[in-house]
Every structure is written in C-alpha cells, then in structure tokens.
C-alpha cells in the first residue's frame, strides 16, 4: 500500500483573547489541507508538531503591554523549547508582539505613529527567500496582505536594526504598489518599514500582517498562501523539529 503523502502538522495556540485562531485553523486545515489543531495556552507538551502558530488577537486584553502577559503562559516555555529543537514558529500580529515580549525576537512594539487602529491591505516586499517561511516566494516579490493593529510600530536599537538588515533577517518590508519602501507605504511608523523579521536561527518568524486572512481569492487576495506553502515545503524537505519523537498525533486533527 502506498503511504499517503505526509501532511505537515500545525498547532494554533489559543490564548484568552486570541481572535484570529479560527482563521488560522481554517486557512491551514481547510485551505492548505494540512493537519491542524488548537493548542490551549496552558498546555505544556508540543511534541509531534512541525509548526506552531501564535495567532492574532488581544491576548489578556493587551493589558500592560501587548503580549506582555501572554508570554508567561505555560505554553510559552514549551514554545521556547520547541524553537530550540528547531521547530518552526509563526507569530502573526499579536503573536509577533508576544515573541518580542518573550525576547524570542529582538525589538519592541509601540503604538502606531498615527495612534489609529489601522485595518487595510498593504503591500509587502519579500526581502529574503532563504527562510522556511518564504522559500516559495520569488526574491523581491510583492505580496498583498491585510494588517489590523494599533500597535505595530516596530522599534529596536539602531545597532539591532543594522544587524537585522546585515544578516537578512528583515523578511518583509512595507512598500507601495511599485515595490518602494516609502514613508507613505509605512502604515504604522515601523523603523525601516519593517513588517516581519526572523530570529538568528531562522525558524521563528514574526510579522504584523495577517497571511491567514488572505489564502483564498474570494477574500480579495490569496498571497498568504505563499507563507503556508513555504512552511509546508520546508518541513517536507527538511523534516520536523529534532528531539523526542512523538507518538501518533492526538485528537482534534482536522484534515
């Protein structure tokens, strides 16, 4: 009997106040056809997953600072170990903010320069295709992906930004339709129009735009698929995280 092609196993973490978890679940499971399950924030075992998604939302009401309290959820300790084993972590919007607060990515978020909640489609230029999250993209490709946030004004010390730039860790930049990183194309005031970055090892991506909201043409854009396709391609090519092998995936798997 020929084994069915391996499907990549995603976990979508659910914090109190997450509200893009269902979108991510739908995009990964129904649209991309991968295995996906919800991971409650109190869970302390992430074995067997290939990729963990920290979804958008307002975890813990955004109290104190966005992501400041979620980073101390039990699951985040496990996410750190998962990252050490080489597992892929995708932090979207509030997920990106949590990764910054947890110190898993450098820098911090400030209120948007406009002080407004910005909810609109933006253009992103893919700055590095040599990451697990962008390998299905063409260098310099422009993606159309929506944003929806009040605190996406990325900041970091100048030497940190310089290091991110030099090592190709700025993965997405806000640009205009023509692909130019102009001040007008910057929706929130982020330094150097930065929209998404990876960690030094390349297995943790944080980005403010929402790829899970645009995987179907019906919704106005399917460019978000490039990111999920990249992850799937990477896992199938390179294998999942190292470390203790999991038993068979548990329940809650959507096919």
């Amino acid at each position, binding site marked *: 009997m020929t084994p069915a092609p391996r499907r990549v196993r995603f976990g979508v973490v659910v914090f109190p106040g997450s509200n893009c978890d269902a979108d991510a679940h739908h995009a990964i499971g129904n649209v991309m056809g991968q295995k996906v399950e919800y991971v409650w924030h109190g869970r302390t075992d992430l074995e067997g997953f290939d990729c963990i998604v920290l979804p958008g939302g307002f975890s813990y009401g955004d109290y104190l600072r966005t992501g400041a309290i979620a980073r101390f959820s039990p699951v985040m300790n496990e996410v750190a170990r998962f990252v050490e084993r080489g597992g892929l972590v995708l932090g979207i919007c509030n997920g990106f903010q949590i990764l910054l607060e947890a110190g898993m990515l*450098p820098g*911090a978020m400030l209120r948007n320069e406009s002080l407004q909640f910005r909810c609109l489609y933006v253009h992103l230029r893919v700055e590095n295709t040599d990451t697990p999250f962008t390998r299905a993209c063409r260098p310099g490709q422009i993606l159309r992906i929506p944003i929806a946030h009040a605190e996406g004004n990325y900041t970091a010390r100048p030497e940190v930004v310089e290091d991110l730039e030099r090592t190709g860790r700025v993965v997405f930049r806000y640009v205009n339709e023509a692909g130019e990183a102009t001040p007008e194309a910057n929706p929130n005031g982020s330094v150097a129009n930065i929209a998404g970055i990876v960690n030094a090892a390349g297995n943790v991506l944080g980005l403010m735009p929402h790829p899970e909201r645009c995987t179907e043409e019906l919704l106005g854009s399917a460019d978000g698929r490039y990111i999920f396709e990249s992850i799937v391609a990477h896992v199938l090519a390179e294998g999942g995280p190292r470390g203790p092998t999991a038993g068979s995936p548990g329940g809650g798997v959507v096919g």
Partner: protein
Amino acid sequence: MDDSRRKLYEGKAKIVWEAGPGEAGPGAEAARTYIVEYKDDATAFDGKKRGRIGGKGRVNNLVSALLFDLLEREGVPTHFVRTLGDREMLVRRVKIIPVEVVVRNVAAGSLAKRLGLEEGAPLARTVLEHYYKSDELGDPLINRYHLRTLDLAADPEIDRMESLALRINDILGGALEECGLRLIDFKLEFGRTDTGEVILADEISPDTCRFWDTETNEKLDKDRFRRDLGDVEEAYEEVLRRVTAGAEKWRVRRRGARASGGERPAHARGEWPAHARVFVTLKSTVLDPQGAAVENALRTLGYDEVKSVRVGKFITLELTHLSPERVDEMCRRLLANPVIEDYRFEVVPATAPPAGSPPPGAPTGTGGKGQ
C-alpha cells in the same frame, strides 16, 4: 564673593543669593538657580541661644552636597546642582513650603520630652512629624488637618513630602550606618519648582540631623552646641570626614547601601507591609506618539508653556514585605519592557490607618492598565 550679587534672604544659618553674572553658568541656568551660602553662626531653641561654630558653614555645605548627591542618584529629586567652593552651593530655584518634615527612628529631643520617652529608646515604628515654619509662633508641631486649614500644601504635595521623607530615611539610614553614624532623627524642607514639582530643598547636615556614633552613641551633631557638651567643631569635622569616606564607598557600590541592614526602618528591612509605586515611561530616545498627541491637544487648548509631554504608567503594588531587589525584578520581567521603557519605583510603609485618617503616603493607585 561677587559684589554684583543680590542678597535675597538671610536666615539663621544660611544666606540665599541671586547669582551674579557668570557665577551660575550660562544665562538660562542662572535664571533657574540661586546660590546658598552656609554660615558659621549657630542658634538654638528658636534663636534664644546664639553662638558660632568654626568651620560649620563648610561642613554643612559639603555634607549636604554629598548627601544630596547620594539621594539624587537613588532617584530622589533635590534642589542641589553643584558646589561652588567650600561654603556655597548652586541650587535650583524653588519656593520653600513652610513646613518642616521631621523623621524619627529613635526617641530624642522634643519627642522624648513630649511623649515621656527615654532618650535613645528605639521607636517601634518610624515617626513622621510636621512643624509649621514660623519664627513668630516658635515652629509649632502641626498635623495634616492643620496643614490643610492653613493651606500650607495641597494633599498630593503632603503625600509626596511624606513618601519622599520616608524614602530618604531608608536611603540615608543605610548609607550613614556604613559611615558609623546612626541616623536618630532629621528635619527636611521641601520646595516647589517653577513647574510645581515638589523636591527636597534646604540642607542635610549636623545642624538638621541627629547623628550618633554607632558604637559609642556619642552625639556628633548640633546637640553638642545646644547642650554645651564641648568639642562642637571636632564633632562637625568628624561627620564630614566620615561622610566623605562613605561617599567614596557609595560611589563604588551604589546599590550596596540600599541592601545593608542595621537600624533601617522595619518596612525597608522587609519586615513590614509596604506599598511600592512603580512609574513606567518610554525611554527618552523612543518616540512617544501618545505624548505627541497630548502635547498637540494641550497646545490647541492654549497651554503654550507645554514644551513636551511623555505619557507613562503608574502602578501600585501592595506587598506583604518589601524587597527592593524583587520589586526591581518585577519591573524588569513584567511591568516595564526594558527595550523601550524606563522605570523607577518608590516604597512607602503600609501603616495601619489611625481611625478617621488615611494612612500617610497611602497610594491613590489607578491600576496598571495600558493604553
């Protein structure tokens, strides 16, 4: 001394001058500063006893400078800018609030007399008193109700003075212990800056503090003059010597002073419930969009004097016991994001409120919600 100076005020122990041209640095600084000259004249018992203590002006100026500097580095705002020679210091221009705040750790002086306590008896709790600065009335002891009735200071200002006084007690108590000096009690005066901020003013010296030798309990302060104990000048010089030696140690080991035990108040030793007030602000290098918006709004309302606005957070913590190190850790791990924010905190004892009155320095917290 510069002849072009204008004398603004002469008191029993100090003269306040308006700085002459060039004395206080560039014009802008001169406009915001005064010069305080410390005199050798000594008085006691509201001027009934008069005399001179050779070298007192110098000792008081230099001791005050070292202690103000220590307090500034521990986050207490003071009027001290820098010394101008042995007997003078440049200070920020403030309007003195006519209230003396006295903090007592050990029974002595008028407290011992008033309450019938033996001099030298340690006080179970730190005692804080207010005196109305009035030569005419002989600086009477007053309470918060009197302060309000006389409209000497607004309630938030009284809270501020009390919480700063207790914090100063913590800092000085530990630091002076290291110099072999027991801080028995001391008197503080506060002033309002142009912007209405309440900061520490006046002096901190053997004229305004009781210092006893930690080993022998020998008095090393103005009580030697008040009570004709002799060796007055020697005692003042000894205090300067010890504080100067201590200042070297504090500089090297800034945080060490805070951690030392000794005669520090119970709440500072972590044996008493305490409140911590945490202030979180965006680093000055980080653009503050909210501050900018508020600044524009204030200007639109016609408040042209607003130069800049920074919006931050104020958090109060109620603690079963106090450990400054742990509060610091809480700030670093959760309450502030060190990448973009600075924090500072102050600690006040959580005293049981006497019937009908709010506890001194009780926080009027607003919670720590962001936005």
